[in-house]
């Protein structure tokens, strides 16, 4: 068993998330690479929730349809997922709550009285998950010591009770198969949101401002919890309008600042986005996509905000948009978003989604590219300060209040070099040209960045085109099919030349996107590029490896 999937399912409030993470952490200690997909409804208690933990000896970022081990904390968990069981799957279930019927004949069923154990120990509902962690470890011949160590690391309260319950689960079942350790270095587990947060901090973040909204709230929670450790300020204001305006105030006064939201919140931020461009106040926006229109499916995923991000805000202005595809990319692209925003004094958008943000990955710091820090152009203090000095690159030297004997005036109106309001036609054109020239300078700088990634068989006739969180599943499917994958990391400014080079010579270009209209393809069409086929999924759920592979086989040559 060196590539297997565990599904743990039950009622919201059963601690599905936590136990999924505990099991993944134990497997990660054994050298496995992990990916977790989390599926939960938009409610606090009740409802069906599940996590798929995939473990492999290879680095992965996708889930499979078939289940090798099912942990059924209630009847729904069995009923909803039994069709996906492998023919030799193992089902570990709470015999107090679950009735086993109609299972494939090869399945091995291991029942134990989890609910009774909880009752006997006088423990809370949520602790049943500890019981299941114990049971799955014993069934897979995982040494008790590994569980013990992991529990002592993860639990801050009730360690002894949780361990006792885990032990009872451990002792209630017998060994059934062997999960063998993999001989490789263990990697830390991290969510995409955590990777984004750490990338921002690495980029010098001083202030994070956000109004809670799935799927980026975990960034707010994570950074708020670590605010003292990182010496940052974390604020949750009255609305997303306030969020972005407050961020622009902090930016003006010299803080590197980021905000996080989803599509609905970003709607409220668009006036602030346009202001950021006009006043040349840098800001980073983490835009976590979830299905719309409107409130849509709050706790599910999609890639529907590419064109919204490209076009949001009145007026014509340059912006940076990056789209990371996994935890490592989320880390270094969030950092790059800060660097570029502050060097070019423009808004930067990091386009993520629920699958990336809340997915759990084995994080390999050693594969992060060493990015050259884009250093801001600062004022030399020799001539009187002009905030919007019209220089060749368009990038005026930046300075922050207070400056002795000089004032810094920023303005949402069209303004002259000193920041005074103007309606003069000559100045208006000059300043608009200056702002747009910054994009040209940025395009030039991006030449040295890896803006487009290519994976798989470079000679293949078939190219899979993808962006964002579909990267993991596309790369893995391409490996199986011996095809090539092209993934733009930067979507604005669009890396036309590199994209052209990457897709050159292909007989068939197949775009894989989690939206209904093929937004990356539409963007490429603007530059005379495109795709021959599209595979689109817009039910809020991610592509599974099996599903995508089958669809690719249908259209490929």
């Amino acid at each position, binding site marked *: 068993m060196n590539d297997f999937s565990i599904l743990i399912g039950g009622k919201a409030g059963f601690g599905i998330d936590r136990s999924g993470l505990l099991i993944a952490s134990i497997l990660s200690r054994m050298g496995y690479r992990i990916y977790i997909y989390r599926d939960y409804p938009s409610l606090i208690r009740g409802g069906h929730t599940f996590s798929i933990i995939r473990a492999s000896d290879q680095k992965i970022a996708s889930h499979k349809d078939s289940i090798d081990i099912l942990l059924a904390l209630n009847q729904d968990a069995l009923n909803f997922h039994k069709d996906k069981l492998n023919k030799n799957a193992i089902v570990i279930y709470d015999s107090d709550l679950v009735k086993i019927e109609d299972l494939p004949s090869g399945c091995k069923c291991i029942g134990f009285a989890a609910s009774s154990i909880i009752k006997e120990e006088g423990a809370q509902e949520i602790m049943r998950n500890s019981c299941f962690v114990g049971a799955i470890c014993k069934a897979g011949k995982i040494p008790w010591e590994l569980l013990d160590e992991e529990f002592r690391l993860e639990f801050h309260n009730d360690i002894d009770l949780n361990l006792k319950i885990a032990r009872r689960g451990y002792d209630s079942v017998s060994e059934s198969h062997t999960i063998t350790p993999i001989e490789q270095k263990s990697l830390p587990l991290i969510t995409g949101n955590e990777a984004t947060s750490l990338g921002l901090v690495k980029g010098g973040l001083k202030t994070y401002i956000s109004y809670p909204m799935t799927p980026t709230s975990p960034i707010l929670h994570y950074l708020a919890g670590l605010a003292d450790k990182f010496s940052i300020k974390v604020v949750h204001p009255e609305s997303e309008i306030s969020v972005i*305006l407050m961020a622009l105030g902090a930016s003006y006064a010299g803080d590197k600042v980021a905000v996080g939201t989803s599509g609905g919140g970003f709607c409220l931020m668009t006036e602030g986005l346009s202001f950021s461009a006009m006043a040349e106040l840098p800001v980073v926006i983490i835009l976590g996509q979830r299905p719309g229109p409107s409130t849509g499916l709050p706790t599910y995923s999609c890639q529907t905000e590419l064109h919204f991000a490209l076009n949001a805000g009145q007026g014509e202005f340059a912006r940076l948009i990056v789209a990371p595809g996994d935890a490592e990319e989320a880390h270094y692209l969030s950092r790059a978003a800060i660097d570029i925003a502050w060097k070019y004094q423009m808004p930067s958008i990091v386009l993520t989604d629920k699958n990336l943000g809340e997915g759990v990955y084995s994080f390999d710091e050693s594969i992060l590219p060493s990015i050259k820090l884009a250093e801001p152009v600062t004022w030399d203090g020799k001539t009187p300060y002009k905030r919007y000095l019209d220089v060749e690159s368009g990038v005026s030297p930046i300075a922050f209040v207070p400056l002795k004997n000089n004032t810094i005036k920023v303005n949402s109106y069209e303004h002259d070099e000193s920041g*005074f309001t103007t309606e003069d036609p000559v100045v208006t054109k000059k300043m608009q040209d200056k702002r747009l020239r910054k994009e040209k300078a940025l395009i030039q700088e991006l030449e040295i960045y890896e803006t487009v990634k290519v994976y798989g068989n470079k000679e293949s006739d078939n190219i899979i085109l993808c962006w964002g969180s579909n990267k993991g599943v596309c790369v893995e499917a391409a490996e199986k099919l011996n095809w090539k994958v092209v993934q733009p990391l930067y979507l604005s400014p669009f890396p036309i030349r590199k994209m052209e080079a990457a897709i050159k010579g292909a007989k068939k270009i197949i775009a894989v996107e989690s939206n209904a209209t093929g937004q990356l393809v539409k963007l490429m069409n603007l530059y005379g590029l495109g795709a021959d086929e599209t595979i689109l999924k817009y039910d809020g759920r991610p592509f599974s490896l099996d599903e995508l592979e089958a669809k690719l086989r249908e259209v490929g040559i």
Partner: protein
Amino acid sequence: MINLNTPAINTWCPGCGNFAILNAMKAALGSLAEEGMPIENVVIVSGIGCHAKIVDYINVNSFYSLHGRVFPPATGIKLAKPELTVIGHAGDGDAYGEGLEHLIFAAKRNVNMTAIIHNNRVYGLTTGQYTPTSPLGFKGRSTPSGTKELPINPLELMLSSGATFLARGTSHGLELLKKIFKEAILHKGFALVDVLQVCVTYYNMYEYYDKRVYELKDHDPADRDQAEKKIREWDYNKDASIPIGVFYKKDAPTFEEGF
């Protein structure tokens, strides 16, 4: 006296009440600078409207924001650099209409800043529509047969929201205005001055205010009940005498101190 003039050409109407606010603010800042306040630490933030042009007319750091969005950037500036002196200028449409939630939250948080509300009770720059403080029946270009809603009393709202300094001034009476501005700027916490500023073009109230305004005497701003009573004396609608001066003052921890 420090020179706070700028090269920008003033485009307010002759007789506009904003001149009094501009001159009182320049005088207050000049006087504070003489007393040792570093002028480079001052940032003025404005919304959009006639009032907002003030940032072009005073030679200090400025943040010319969006309509209704004076208080969020002002709060952000204080978060990043608490040592700065931040003064937000907002119109009544800005502060009491489009950006009301921001105003309430700035007061609730007790952000250490000053809010100067240019309350002319009419939209000037958009040529004469009613505002949240226009009296019932106000005939503006969007309400030709008169408004059907009562005005809010912004000071009463601010008192219940947690503002720790509340005052009212008028654009007639420069000396008093300068004195109130100075006191508001020196106050540690959220200070709001509602200035009955007159729009000569769309709502000329000079005569009306001159007849009714009186300066608070023997008033204890530390007494919340007394402050409330005085704030309620005129409700921005009915005909009543209009007290001006400092209504309320209280010491309380500020938002920025918490970080």
